[in-house]
């Protein structure tokens, strides 16, 4: 054996032969430690048994429980949204239809007794124009009764006086004369229009403005081209009849020289979702839940007399389902791509017509109840609280839409379109 091998052997023997006694009470210390550990373990097990029923993570309550809570929250949100959207505010105090006999039975305009400001102006019109009032009778078998009109516009007259005073400050006398001359021409053109273009119903009358519409017109009479009640009424009734006859876009002859017909401008829809994510594997998960889509279109026509707006809104609540593939995860952030389909249920579809910001009519649209779509999205998710996170997705979507059955909207013009979504997601596995 070489020296170093012998040295190692001796060293090993010498070191392993070293002996040193532990403290005499060491065993008791060890036993005390073991007893304390046993007692602590028993207490923690008992407290865990007592506390366990109180600590139940949400996802252990079951998938259906989570879905139910999400649906309940969505139902509340939809109820609030629908309740706010469909109410059209009254501009003026409503007038009982019973007090408007001309709406049910035609009346003829009689020689007025004119104590009110409007009636004074009517009485002051030139004789050449006064025949126009009486001439309305053969043209229309249902015209507003002056007495009735007076009762509905007395309040508006006050407004009109105020408006006229402020408007008069900005008008020159020359301008006022040209307006008066223009109004006579316009009245004649309206007469011709009525004779040639307006439909006559079997009952002998054309559709009249509703009381609120008359009140709106009376309020705005100060900004109209004419101070004559006849032209104001004619203009208003023409607008009402054209809306009725021509539907979504109308051509106001009074404005024809000033403005082209207004086409709807369609805005890209916004979708907000409450999503559930179920993890299938390290990289795969399923997303579903509820999504809310708000579709909005509008047109606006600015005229010398008023601003006319047409607003179309269609709202959907849908159920998407998709397969998500995780791409990158960093801290609480995650990037993923998603492929899926969705079924959207239409819950609201209306056309609203506004004059100077005040709604004058709301029409319900005939829209198919369910719309199917397929989508491919790229998403970013951020878990800010446990399994709860925010997500944002962009991508493309294709909607199966039959344009013949749909009113014009972003969906009909862009069945294959860019899509954006955002919302809250609860992930579990």
């Amino acid at each position, binding site marked *: 054996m*070489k*020296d*170093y091998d*012998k*040295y*190692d052997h*001796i*060293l*090993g023997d*010498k*070191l*392993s*032969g*070293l*002996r*040193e*006694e*532990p*403290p005499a009470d*060491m*065993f008791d*210390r*060890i*036993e005390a*430690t*073991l007893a304390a*550990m046993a007692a602590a373990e028993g207490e923690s097990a008992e407290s865990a048994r007592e506390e366990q029923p109180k600590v139940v993570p949400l996802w252990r309550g079951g998938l259906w429980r989570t879905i139910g809570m999400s649906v309940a929250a969505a139902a509340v949100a939809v109820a609030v949204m629908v309740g706010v959207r469909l109410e059209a505010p009254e501009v003026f105090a409503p007038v009982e239809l019973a007090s408007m006999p001309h709406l049910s039975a035609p009346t003829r305009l009689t020689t007025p007794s004119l104590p009110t400001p409007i009636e004074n102006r009517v009485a002051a019109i030139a004789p050449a124009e006064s025949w126009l009032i009486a001439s309305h009778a053969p043209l229309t078998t249902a015209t507003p009764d002056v007495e009735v009109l007076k009762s509905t516009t007395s309040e508006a007259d006050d407004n009109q006086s105020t408006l006229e005073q402020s408007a008069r400050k900005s008008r020159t006398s020359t301008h006022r004369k040209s307006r008066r001359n223009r109004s006579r021409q316009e009245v004649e053109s309206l007469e011709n229009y009525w004779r040639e273009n307006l439909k006559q119903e079997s009952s002998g009358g054309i559709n009249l403005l509703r009381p609120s519409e008359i009140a709106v017109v009376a309020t705005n009479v100060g900004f109209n081209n004419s101070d004559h009640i006849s032209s104001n009424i004619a203009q208003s009734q023409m607008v009402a009849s054209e809306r009725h006859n021509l539907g979504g876009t109308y051509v106001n002859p009074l404005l024809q020289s000033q403005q082209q017909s207004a086409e709807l401008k369609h805005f890209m829809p916004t979708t907000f979702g409450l999503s559930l994510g179920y993890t299938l594997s390290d990289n795969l998960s399923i997303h579903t839940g509820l999504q809310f889509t708000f579709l909005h279109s509008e047109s606006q026509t600015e005229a010398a007399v008023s601003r006319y707006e047409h607003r179309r809104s269609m709202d959907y609540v849908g159920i998407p389902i998709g397969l998500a593939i995780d791409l990158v995860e960093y801290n609480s952030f995650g990037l993923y791509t998603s492929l899926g389909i969705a079924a959207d249920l239409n819950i609201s579809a209306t056309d609203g017509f506004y004059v100077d910001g005040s709604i004058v009519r709301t029409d319900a649209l005939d829209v198919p109840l369910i719309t199917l779509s397929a989508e491919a999205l790229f998403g970013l998710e951020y878990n800010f609280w446990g399994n709860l996170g925010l997500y944002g997705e962009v991508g493309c979507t294709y909607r199966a839409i039959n344009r013949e059955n749909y009113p014009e909207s972003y969906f009909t013009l862009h069945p294959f379109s860019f899509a954006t979504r955002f919302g809250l997601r609860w992930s579990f596995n």
Partner: protein
Amino acid sequence: MTIESIIDGLRRGDSEARRELYQRYATAMFSLVRRYVKVRAAAEDVFHDGFVVLYTKIGDYRGEGSFEGWMKRIFVNAALNHLRQSSGKGFVDNDIGDLPPGRTGGAPPDALATLSDEELRRAIESLPEGYRTVLNLHAVEGYSHAEIAQMLDIGETTSRSQYLRAKARLAEIIGRHH
């Protein structure tokens, strides 16, 4: 009691089995710990923790290999954990010394054989911690340098050099006394 009956008693939580085992192996295990841990008070704590682990983890012993070897590994690991926590750095000592392999330097092996236990203990305690650890693991416990490298998270070459330097230093200390 046979060792098998002691082991069975330990699994049942029998305090008499614990006492019997302690009486048989306490001195050997404490001496093992003292070879690694320089300070006695710290060595008592490591020794105490080693037995607690031994009694509570008796279920992990499946009968593969000797029970004594399994028990020694528990105390060696306890000592190494203590050294790792107390030093805060690795087991590598940067004491530079160029000694060719195989050279023991200093005193001949016979001088080592005549060294008393107390002198040897003092000589071991005077070694740097890293030298002492590798020396005990290789010379006494019989671990290979590859195993030591894995246990201490050092390179195998480092383990060899540390062992050679430990022996050289020990020989130098012995030589000064003789």
